């Protein structure tokens, strides 16, 4: 099978290339002349004359070549003229060969001819340059297309609607944003409680509570009744929990919203925690633990983040033992202790009138009693866990490599600068260094990059990662660490920084892409106790960042020599032993 791609690439140049090989032929002719250096003095005059003619022709040739550069059409003509010229030259050479007798040597003539040859070389180079310009001009895109980077854009005038903030009688903060484009209403309640508050011997309690709030019946409605009512109305109520937040959401067609809100209120205020449904949820959670090592990715992220947060509740993962320790009473107590209106922040958007909706909410949720919530003291996160190389053995074709350490709190000054540094390093995909170096240039990974997570209450994490064929594992660890060090040692260019700043500035409009996004963000900002103008501050600070400040924050906040490194892979196939990078600890999977 013959592959013609080489020709395809060359075709793109053909017709636009003024046949530099023709110029080469001219040089060859002169080389032939050089062999005729042995001519007698008497013939020198003739020869000099001939040479003058040649030079005149060359001048002519040069003009022709300039024409060549101008347009494709005249270029083709130019090529033809060149051929004609060459044709004219040939008999002259013949004549010279006949009239000259070899060989007596004539240094001065050699010099003249060498000069001539050098002229031709220059000419040749010029032809190449001209031809490139011509080729570019004569590309297949229309000549009136502007360069992509030269485009200018009208300013966007952004006037996003502001949600209305209301406080219900029991302290629930609600942000409401009307949107009458579709007959839908969506809402969410964020509660300032999550799995961080569950005891170490009952890890999984927050998730089970959230799950069974929804599935275990509420306010005297049976589990089946709730499912049946919601699904017949094509509506939904869902509860989910994360480390710091529990959210209870609903979605309804406008005409059923009262009914759906009633169920929503029952689920959030009066869950019945049906024993049988708890068993279903527990069984699911246990099966999920049984399957927790099925996917290499899942192993890697669990083990890595557990090491980063060692000793902190953020590192706890449910086991058979902790899940089996949870009782129905625990769910009731957890709900009773934390699910209070005074730590609840809601967002509603859709086809309603704000005042009427506030009345509905007051009706549905007003009887929910406020009570001060007694939060347990969270231990501090160790900012400097001991650097180690953790290894998990798994027979796979690819290693998953993660390197990182705890970092800073979200939206602090250090975070705002570090966020930009991380964008340049690996946080902004194809606009960042790690993706360019590891994926695009070397084909070492499909998934690679770096991240800076947003830490609220306790610091977020900085980490870099790559999923790479096993036999390049060591190389990829080296490259990830190398890019972090390069950021510290060499800093960044103004151009790289500008790219990141533009990304942040120009994407800001997407923060207002839907009524739900606007209302929800307002609710979360208040729950997280962020300053209402935190994002404006962030944008301002990002604009003020210099290459020096990026390098500075990279030096002070990134610690390539104190990384937790985690590798899931098959060490028998690694290119380098992991011990090259530090003390190795093997993690045995359960």
């Amino acid at each position: 099978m013959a592959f013609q791609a080489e020709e395809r690439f060359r075709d793109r140049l053909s017709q636009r290339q003024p046949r530099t090989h023709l110029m080469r032929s001219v040089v060859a002719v002169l080389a032939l002349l050089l062999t005729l250096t042995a001519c007698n003095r008497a013939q020198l005059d003739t020869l000099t004359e001939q040479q003058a003619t040649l030079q005149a022709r060359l001048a002519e040739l040069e003009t022709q070549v300039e024409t060549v550069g101008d347009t494709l059409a005249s270029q083709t003509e130019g090529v033809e003229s060149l051929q004609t010229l060459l044709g004219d030259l040939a008999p002259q050479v013949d004549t010279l060969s006949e009239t000259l007798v070899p060989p007596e040597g004539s240094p001065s003539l050699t010099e003249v001819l060498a000069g001539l040859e050098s002229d031709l070389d220059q000419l040749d180079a010029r032809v190449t340059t001209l031809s490139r310009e011509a080729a570019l001009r004569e590309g297949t895109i229309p000549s009136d297309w502007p360069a992509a980077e030269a485009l200018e854009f009208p300013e966007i005038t952004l006037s996003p609607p502001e949600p209305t903030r209301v406080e219900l009688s029991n302290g629930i903060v609600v942000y409401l944003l009307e949107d009458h484009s579709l007959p839908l209403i969506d809402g969410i309640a964020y509660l300032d409680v999550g799995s961080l508050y569950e005891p170490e011997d009952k890890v999984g309690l927050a998730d089970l509570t959230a799950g069974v709030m929804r599935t275990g019946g509420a306010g005297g409605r049976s589990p089946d009744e709730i499912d049946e009512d919601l699904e017949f109305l094509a509506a939904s109520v869902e509860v989910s929990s994360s480390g710091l937040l529990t959210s209870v959401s609903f979605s309804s067609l406008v005409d059923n919203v009262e009914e759906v809100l009633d169920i929503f209120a029952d689920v959030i205020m009066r869950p019945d925690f049906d024993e049988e449904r708890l068993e279903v949820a527990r069984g699911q959670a246990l099966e999920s633990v049984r399957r927790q090592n099925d996917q290499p990715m899942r192993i890697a992220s669990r083990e890595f983040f557990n090491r980063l947060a060692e000793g902190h509740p953020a590192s706890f993962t449910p086991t058979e033992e902790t899940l089996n320790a949870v009782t129905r009473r625990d769910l009731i107590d957890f709900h009773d202790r934390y699910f209070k209106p005074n730590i609840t922040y809601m967002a509603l958007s859709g086809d309603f009138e704000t005042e009427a909706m506030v009345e509905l909410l007051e009706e549905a949720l007003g009887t929910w009693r406020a009570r001060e919530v007694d939060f347990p003291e969270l231990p501090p996160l160790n900012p400097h866990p001991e650097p180690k190389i953790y290894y998990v053995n798994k027979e796979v074709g690819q290693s998953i490599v993660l390197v990182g350490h705890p970092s800073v709190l979200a939206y602090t000054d250090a975070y705002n600068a570090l966020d930009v540094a991380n964008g340049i390093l690996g946080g902004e995909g194809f606009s960042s260094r790690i993706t360019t170096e590891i994926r695009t240039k070397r084909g070492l990974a499909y998934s690679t990059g770096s991240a800076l997570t947003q830490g609220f209450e306790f610091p977020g994490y900085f980490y870099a990662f790559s999923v790479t064929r096993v036999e390049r594992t060591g190389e990829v660890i080296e490259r990830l660490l190398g890019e972090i060090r390069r950021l510290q040692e060499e800093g960044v260019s103004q151009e790289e920084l500008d790219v990141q700043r533009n990304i942040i500035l120009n994407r800001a409009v997407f923060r207002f892409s839907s009524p739900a996004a606007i209302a929800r963000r307002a609710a979360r900002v208040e729950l997280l106790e962020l300053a209402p103008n935190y994002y404006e501050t962030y944008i301002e600070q990002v604009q003020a960042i210099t290459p020096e400040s990026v390098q500075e924050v990279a030096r002070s906040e990134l610690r390539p020599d104190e990384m937790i490194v985690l590798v899931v892979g098959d060490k028998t196939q690694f290119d380098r032993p992991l011990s090259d990078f530090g003390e190795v600890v093997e993690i045995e999977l359960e």
Partner: protein
Amino acid sequence: MNLRMSIHHIVALSLLAVLTLSTVSAQDLADSVYDFTLDNGLRVIMVDQEFAPTISFNLMFDVGGVDEPPGLGGIAHMVEHMAFKGTRSIGSKDPVRELELLAEVELNVNTLAEARENGASEEELAELEQALNEAQERALELQDVNYLERLMDQNGAVGLNASTGYDRTSYVVSLPNNRLELYARIYADILLDPVFRSFYEEADVVREERRQRSEDDPRGALFEVFLREAFKVHPYGRPLIGDPEEIAAYRTEIALDFFDTFYQPNRAVLVLAGDVEPERDLAIIENFFGALPEGSETHIDIPSEPLQSSERRVEFSFDAEPQVIAGYHKPTYPDRSAYVLDVASAILSSGRTSRIYKRMVVEERTALSAFTGSSFPGTRYPNLFIFYALPRSPHTTTELEEAFYQEVERLQTDLVDERELEKVKNQVRAGFIRSLASSSGLASQIAFYELFLGGWENLVSYESIIETVTAEEVREAARRYLVPENRTVATLISEGSEDQ
């Protein structure tokens, strides 16, 4: 607006309310859609959604895994990756010299391939590989690496991506709406003047993608085994990302040929959903995309899957907990049974009140999850009705299979309850309304309907067809298609447990 307000007061029966509302939404959609066809055949569809000054783009091509020549599995996906490599005017420091160096890379690739074929010595091969690497590095030096993505990103692009399916290839991104001209300039250039630079480096990326999605991931691996068994002739049976040997054999020339054949304006739909101004925007689009020459008609003969006459079963062992997938061959749209089987699938597994969820997850507690789907793995050609489930230990995939077959039998014997049917129809209607709230999701649906399902307008008629599906039809379709001899089953067995 007034119309909808008046409807708010009808309420009475919630069912009636749902019905009428959706009719209004269908009209709303029709009122906000503008469609055009450029002279070169490119269809441009705009959906006016004014909330934010942004536009979601979906440029979808009538080309996918099914169009690949035999032996070139995954080339559609490879070409999708290459489309982001830029053009002569986007992504190069010196396009002319770069093209020369790229030509040299190709020469080196050919020399190396020939040497391999002729059984050259290890040493010779190492030397040639070294020469190839050097040629690649020289070409790379003249490349402005990832420039296209950077240009998009710094202009505020969100969700810049592409995906290849068996049926279609789709390029998506959202931009602030003042960047429409940039979008048109870049994407029209890609279609007119692409440069497939760094081709062999990207083939390595694709190889990594395959390892990640299909080799080290149990579900990816199971689905590949399953499809190979279910489709013996039709290309739905081939891995979408290609086999490792196929990926290793990709050549720039082949990818360019594939691109030239299929990336033609008459095989594409460009959808813009968001804050558009149809007349002004169309002029901008026409200015750039209008420069594309009219493509020729290409007809690909895709072989039909012969009728299956007996059950096929396949097992494979993997270092993971067990899973099972079963599938039945069935027709696709616009065949009426495709709609009927959509309803059957919803009755079986959509939501907590569905039959399979209630039985396997809540009552018998044999499954961690159980799911059915009615158009797998594509929609352009006759496809599969599938069942996919993960057992809860100590229960087995066999138990789940048996329970599923009993549920199928129930569908074949008893008529489904009217309320059950009504619930599914309500959900389809509400689902349609919800789909209108998302610009990127809507753009994707509109593009797909326009290319393959007879026009975007049919997106609106889908629910009205579902509306007419009867309990008798569900029973009939289950009897006709969900039968053992039409079935393929693939099971993932935990490594080391085969003897148990």
